[in-house]
């Protein structure tokens, strides 16, 4: 269980996060959504231990984050950043295997190959092991990082770590539809085996379909929090995003799907004709 209480983050006198309370329990996918600049990525960085909050606390299984060493943290938490570039020609599998190189994972070195291959298979990059990372497309790079995080969690699992946390920062932003589904299915599977999954995501429809809990951030504060069915509401979303949003339901399952309100556009078209 990853918990944040009364989180405040200030940078250069600006309050980026303000009074955030949040819990990401094992076994659930928690999606953090919100408009640009709402502080989603910052929140993820604080929760990952990368940034120290100005005030408030982050706890992992009851233990204060700042007292956990980087190595111990890496044995219990894997993070997928937004796509990065490498200045040196690592191959795909070399990047993925870094996930198994966390201090303390030395015992599983011989299995690193297996973990890496399996993780690549999972994200649909089975034949890519020997390709050079920098030659891949943006979406492929993103999936390499996801595979690296999976490799890290698998290695952690073998080491019998406590609850592991998987954090994803916009994992689907440069993926095609099929791979969006694939990656989010994997996130669900990770939650299914007891891990806490936290995902920052822009696509409201994907969040509605895959997340158990939604945290809606706006201007550094929690605007709303709850199950998708509660959060995805015309009024709540329109207010948070400052634009008219219309929530519909897919007929069979009742999963909400969102569209920007088309009325204004229709009116404009009407006036023009």
């Amino acid at each position, binding site marked *: 269980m990853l918990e944040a209480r009364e989180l405040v983050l200030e940078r250069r006198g600006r309050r980026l996060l303000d009074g955030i309370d949040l819990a990401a329990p094992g076994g659930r996918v928690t999606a953090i959504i919100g408009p640009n600049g709402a502080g989603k990525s910052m929140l993820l960085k604080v929760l990952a*231990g*990368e940034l120290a909050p100005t005030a408030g606390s982050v706890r992992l299984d009851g233990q204060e984050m700042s007292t956990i060493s980087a190595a111990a943290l890496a044995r219990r938490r894997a993070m997928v950043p937004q796509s990065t570039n490498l200045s*040196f*020609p690592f191959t795909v599998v*070399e990047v993925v295997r870094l996930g198994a190189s966390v*201090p303390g994972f030395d015992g599983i070195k011989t299995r690193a190959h297996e973990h890496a291959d399996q993780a690549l298979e999972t994200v649909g990059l089975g034949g890519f092991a020997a390709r050079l990372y920098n030659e891949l497309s943006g979406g492929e790079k993103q999936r390499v990082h996801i595979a690296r995080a999976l490799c890290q969690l698998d290695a952690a699992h073998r080491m019998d770590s406590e609850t592991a946390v998987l954090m994803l920062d916009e994992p689907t932003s440069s993926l095609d539809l099929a791979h969006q589904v694939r990656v989010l299915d994997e996130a669900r599977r990770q939650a299914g085996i007891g891990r806490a999954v936290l995902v920052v995501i822009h696509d409201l429809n994907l969040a509605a379909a895959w997340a158990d809990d939604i945290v809606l951030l706006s201007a550094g504060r929690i605007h709303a929090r709850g199950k998708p069915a509660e959060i995805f509401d015309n009024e709540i979303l329109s207010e948070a995003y400052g634009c008219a949003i219309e929530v519909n339901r897919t007929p069979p399952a009742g999963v909400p799907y969102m569209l920007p309100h088309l009325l204004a556009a229709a009116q404009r078209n009407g006036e023009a004709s």
Partner: protein
Amino acid sequence: MQDMTSPIARTTPQRRERIGYQLIFASVLLLVAAVLVSLSFGATGITLGALGRVLHAYVYGATDSAGVTEQLVLLGIRLPRTILGAFVGAALAVSGAMMQGLFRNPLADPGIIGVSSGATLAAVITIAFGKTFAAPWMAAFGVYALPFAAFLGGFLTTTLLVLIAGRRGQLMVGTLLLAGIAIGAMAGALTGLIAYASDDRELRDLTLWSLGSLSGASWPKVIAILPFVAVIAIMLPRVVRALNGFLLGEAEAFHLGIDVERMKWLIVVVTAACVGAAVAVAGLVGFVGIVVPHFIRLIAGPDHRIVLPCSALLGGALLLFADVIARLAVKPAELPLGIVMAAIGAPVFLHLVLRRGVGGLE
């Protein structure tokens, strides 16, 4: 970036790993060969054939005057020179590899970002003012005064660079390179000022110093750098994992369990130790730190488990071969080592720049 497509890099992961181990093995052989060549060639015409006789004479006591000369040349001159040469080459190549890993830039090198200039300035101050205001320093550290001063100069320069180029835990490469050039130029100006104020004899010493040479090699110098060798040998295995993590970026390195700030400082200190000790014994020798790691990455990829040990071995070998050329090219006189190294290194560096553009500097 074009060189990402180098055919050698396009191999299976297992094969690439095997190539790495083969390269370490080949580097060991090359270093052994370089050591033997370095012991065999010199102005006196004494060759390796004398080694057996010298060892025999050393154990049972020298008999004739020829034996005494051979012993003096091999054990008193060439052996310390060879040991120092191997160390200097290894230290320069390793520090280059570490800087490139830390700054995520294949063109980073202690010589380019001013660390060597800082070390040189400190060494020159020690030489020029050893009898005046630096006298207490000389008295306090004796034979270690010069390497310690050079180390301190390199360390202060590196620290200054990290402070200038660091913003909120992020090291900004562009700032770093520009600041490095500026600090290097300032250190160079001060070094030049000291040279300007020196008498003719000091001036020649300083000039030769700045061109780099192993001609002053001696056993006390070998002993003086031993602490640095120990520091580097102990620290190097500890930074390998961190350097691999840094290739993904500092945040990613943290996610992989690396204590980023501690490791940065460790790398900076080890680099300063390498550069300081190398500058102290051999003056300024450029390009080893760029050419050697680049060559290794081209063959075996950027994994520091391979890059660091191979850099040490191949850097040592390259410097010894260059030193042999320096000794033989204009014998009985000697070319400064820095000239030979620049003649080899500059074209390779240019090639590197042309192929990569300013990749990673944006």
